[in-house]
């Protein structure tokens, strides 16, 4: 039987939309999930959900202000620092929410969670996860989390928007000191531990990883509209063009992630059609079955995916998604509930 997965994309403060939607799905529709995956703010949300901390999550997001998340560095120190902002309050909040029993629940892998990050040292997409025997194929890499500190570090790393927030060393040692392989005879000393940042750079909504784990019912909450809206303004300032460019790149990554699920579905449907056509045309059903389930068949054991996407119809925020305002957060939570109610 297929698994039901919840996937939450990145989006900073816009995560309030996802929290509102999840609150409605769990507390009003009484949905439950076998698997979670999240990027950035989605990693914070799915990590807390796997820890059974939905009430704390709702309260945190509903009362969030910038001070409960981030700190500002002195202007003179920014250039010599690893980020514009500090993430101390967010780490402290996570430490408050993910206490040891909650961490033990997540780490037990009862409801596995996948948190997307980018490895700064190798540039690879990386999944921190809590699933024994998870199917993660190269070029993506994964690490099974084993301690509370690693779990909190992974949630924080996934949320750490590069440049704006500091990279996080989740693991005490380098994940794979042999990668990439060094030329023979090169010294291997001094391999530093890997630093991780927001996985949204490479994967905005981690749909593929839950499909790879056998999810067939997927609820995906994506925090930017997937339909393009014309911005009827002339961009004349650097500070206007830059965020618009980042928006466009983010939209592109999000569309690609959803497209992966849609194309997988199309191919699965096609494979099913070919099988039934072959049998209808008189081919030996056992032979057909053997051909389609032989080792190496990419869709072996996969079923059609029922993908439900909860996405805002219009952009949730006009400005900086690292500014957390309690009234905007409540507005987006309300919008998330409303959208989940309409879609589901």
């Amino acid at each position, binding site marked *: 039987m297929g698994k039901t997965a919840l996937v939450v994309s990145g989006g900073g403060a816009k995560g309030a939309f996802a929290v509102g939607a999840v609150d409605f799905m769990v*507390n009003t529709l009484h949905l439950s999930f076998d698997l979670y995956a999240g990027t950035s703010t989605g990693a914070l949300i799915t990590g807390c959900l796997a820890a059974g901390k939905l009430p704390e999550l709702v309260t945190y997001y509903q009362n969030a202000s910038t001070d409960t998340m981030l*700190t*500002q560095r002195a202007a003179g120190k920014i250039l010599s620092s690893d980020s514009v*902002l*500090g993430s101390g309050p967010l780490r402290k909040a996570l430490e408050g929410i993910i206490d040891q029993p909650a961490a033990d629940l997540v780490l037990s892998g009862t409801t596995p969670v996948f948190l997307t990050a980018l490895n700064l040292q190798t540039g690879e997409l990386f999944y921190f996860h809590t699933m024994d025997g998870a199917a993660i194929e190269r070029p993506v890499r994964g690490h099974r989390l084993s301690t509370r500190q690693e779990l909190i570090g992974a949630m924080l790393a996934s949320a750490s928007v590069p440049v704006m927030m500091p990279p996080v060393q989740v693991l005490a040692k380098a994940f794979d000191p042999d990668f990439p392989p060094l030329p023979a005879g090169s010294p291997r000393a001094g391999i530093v531990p890997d630093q991780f940042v927001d996985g949204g750079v490479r994967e905005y909504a981690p749909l593929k990883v839950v499909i790879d784990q056998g999810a067939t019912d997927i609820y995906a909450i994506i925090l930017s509209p997937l339909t393009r809206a014309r911005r009827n303004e002339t961009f004349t300032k650097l500070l206007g063009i830059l965020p618009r460019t980042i928006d466009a790149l983010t939209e592109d990554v999000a569309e690609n992630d959803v497209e992966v699920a849609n194309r997988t579905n199309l191919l699965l449907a096609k494979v099913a059609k070919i099988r039934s056509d072959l049998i209808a045309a008189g081919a030996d059903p056992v032979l057909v079955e053997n051909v389609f389930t032989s080792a190496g068949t990419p869709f072996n054991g996969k079923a059609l995916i029922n993908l439900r996407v909860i996405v805002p119809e219009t952009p949730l925020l006009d400005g900086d998604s*690292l*500014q957390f305002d309690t009234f905007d957060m409540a507005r987006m*939570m309300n919008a998330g509930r409303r959208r989940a109610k309409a879609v589901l």
Partner: protein
Amino acid sequence: MPMTWIPPLGLLFVMAGPAKAIASGRDDPCAPGKSVYGPSFVVPLEIAQGVTLGRGSPAPYAASIRLYPSYVLDRRRQVRIALAGGMALVNPQLEALVGGRLSTSVFELNLGPIRGVGLHLGLEGLYGTSDRGLLGLMLIGDLGGAFQGTIRTERDFTNSATLLELGLGFHVHDGSTPETAPVLPTPPHDYLGLVAQGMARDFKAAIGTSRRESVTACRALLLAAQAFVQHHPPDITTVAAFRHALTEAGLEQVETLMFDPDPAPAGVTEVQVVQALYRGMADVLEIPPRP
């Protein structure tokens, strides 16, 4: 105690009151966008020069170097209370200065999360070791939380003179905001607590939505909501009646965004649910609901 100490010392006492009042004031939910970033402790160093008006000879040249270890009482409004210390040249002699300063932001423009420019209004009381009592008013321009320019007028009570100075300075210390997270509210686990929390969310959502239209619309909504919560009539005993009362009170926006509470568990009456809805709104307005 020399009489000249009285104005600066008196000012220091007087400063504490308004500083506390400004810092504890409620934020205006209808005027968003002010950053709450910013350090909690800064130390600007300033070098200034100017003229002393009301003095004949010797030449009325004045200069000073001042250090202001400043504790930021309220980071949103940048209310700062500072010790002031330094040296001043009151031609032809040098003297040490000691006192205090209170300042607050009157304008702030941030570039997203990066501090941009700010304008602060400051009031300062100082004692000079040549037995001068000084009371000053100044405008401080802040650039990126790193540099500052000051224009200051100061009254010298001892010599019945007025000082005009222009200063330039920089922050010798500009600490990051504290790395301690504020205490997070405890989530409600009982049904009525969740109802109140849900209503608070939807009411805040209405405020957040209305202020996107205009500040005026947002303030009108807040006023109507305040009246609505304070005049809770006893005949509103059902959720439907509560919704109707919202519309009657001109709070259609709140009514539209409001989600009906999940079905009540056994033992909880609808009257209690309605009271929880009122409580949710009162919590946002920070006023006690009517019993």
